[in-house]
């Protein structure tokens, strides 16, 4: 059976509506959302209410967490002072706009959702803020999936969709006993694990402007990345009308996403 996984909606209502329409046209009813319903975009309440009304199971994203709990003191991953100032502006704007009911909804979202052999998270099983990039160290990638006791780990956060297969993994353990003095060795073969990043509906960062999500068939194990066109002009107009910085509209329209992302995913603010 096909199921859809969407992530990083970022308060971009036209993009969310277009993606949900595309999912509906394929006859898919099983949808999971990996969070970041809000942040940077102009329609945070509308997007939350749409997801809530459709009862789509949703994980809490980093923006959803920060909007509820306040900005992390200095756990930011902004790559520059300019990005940080823009991010803080968007954060404050979103916090001011959200209704109490919608804040409560975000506050009560789970960190992860498990469905059989699949685990759904926003960033990684460790944190909503951790980036699992497509080229991250294979050992670290395998560790994240294996420790989460999943065969397929669905994540978002990077805004770059990808499918990474971790095949022929094994764990070798060697123990030297003192008494009796001997060595024991064991090697455990691991079945193939996969990390699937759903990309972003509302803030694509794949070099184009189309919203992305993934379709997973839990019988054939096939995963497809889908790209969906939506009315960007509508979102850009809403950004301007909402009083958000026009640069957010410019970046989105040109496929540069609302915000910058550190090239180094391990970047932490040094200020």
């Amino acid at each position, binding site marked *: 059976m096909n199921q859809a996984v969407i992530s990083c909606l970022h308060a971009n209502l036209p993009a969310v509506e277009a993606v949900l329409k595309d999912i509906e046209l394929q006859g898919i009813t099983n949808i999971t959302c990996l969070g970041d319903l809000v942040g940077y975009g102009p329609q945070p309440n509308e997007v939350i209410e749409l997801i809530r009304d459709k009862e789509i199971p949703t994980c809490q994203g980093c923006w959803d967490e920060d909007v509820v709990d306040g900005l992390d003191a200095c756990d930011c991953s902004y*790559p*520059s*002072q*300019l*990005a940080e*100032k*823009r991010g803080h502006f968007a954060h404050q704007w979103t916090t001011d706009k959200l209704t109490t009911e919608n804040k409560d909804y975000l506050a009560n979202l789970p960190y992860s959702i498990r469905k059989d052999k699949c685990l759904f998270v926003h960033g990684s099983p460790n944190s909503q803020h951790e980036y699992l990039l497509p080229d991250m160290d294979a050992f670290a990638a395998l560790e994240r999936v294996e420790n989460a006791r999943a065969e397929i780990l669905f994540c978002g956060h990077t805004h770059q969709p990808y499918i990474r297969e971790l095949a022929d993994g094994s764990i070798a353990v060697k123990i030297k006993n003192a008494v009796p003095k001997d060595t024991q060795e064991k090697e455990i073969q691991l079945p193939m694990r996969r990390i699937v990043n759903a990309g972003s509906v509302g803030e694509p960062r794949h070099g184009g402007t189309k919203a992305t999500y993934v379709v997973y068939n839990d019988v054939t194990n096939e995963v497809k990345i889908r790209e969906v066109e939506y009315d960007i002009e509508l979102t850009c107009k809403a950004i301007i009308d909402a009083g958000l910085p*026009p*640069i957010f509209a*410019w*970046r989105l329209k*040109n496929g540069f996403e609302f915000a*910058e992302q550190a090239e180094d995913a391990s970047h932490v603010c*040094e*200020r």
Partner: protein
Amino acid sequence: MSQVCLISGSPGCGKTNWILNTFKNYSGNCGYLRLGGYSEINLEQAINSKIDFAFLKDQIPNLLDLSISNSISEKDKENILIIIEFPQFFTPKSQGINGVDLRIINELEKYNLQPNRYLHFGRDPELSIKDTLDFREIESISLDLQKHIWDPASLNTFWFELVNGAYGDVYRAKALMNLPDGRYILFNWIVSQQGSQYQTLNQVAPLNGRPERCSEIVIQGKNLNFESIKATIHNCLLNDAVLDHHQTSLRNSQLQTARR
């Protein structure tokens, strides 16, 4: 015997590079003066930027600044090559010295300078044409950024957005920027050329406070959103506390390297 050469051309045509190479190939004293040019209808070209002199002085430390009246001694005047630069979009109507705008001649009299050559980019074959855009309508803005120091990553983002049209249609942008590690970088971009040119200048500021040297950005184009440009630049500049943090960290790092 002094030579006084007047050079004009539109923004981005390669005046400054030509001047630098001419000075480098000259063995005697060198003097430089930049005039602002004159605004014509719909052509705001009168910005008298200090960037070019700061850049040339960095490359040729003995360069004399002719905008300071007492900068040339009688001895310096012997065998001096003086180049006077001014922006001009349109081709002069007459050849040679006769083509010089009378307002320029009058202004040069204040400096007691009389050109014996006049070359215009796009007209005189002696000048290699790097670029001569046919400007019909242009806005110019400049910001004095002296004592300001940029967050390097923010500068990178701002420049990318600027030259890609986020703040209006930019035809030309030129800037001299300070970085927290003391570097002094010339940024240069023109719409018809591929990519920006960046040059780290020879001067390095000490890791202590804010340098006094010239820092400025000049932008020319159409429908420029000056307020948005100013606001974005403001968000890219380091405040005293952050600058101190950066500089302390860099000083400590240098000390550790020196001890090894």
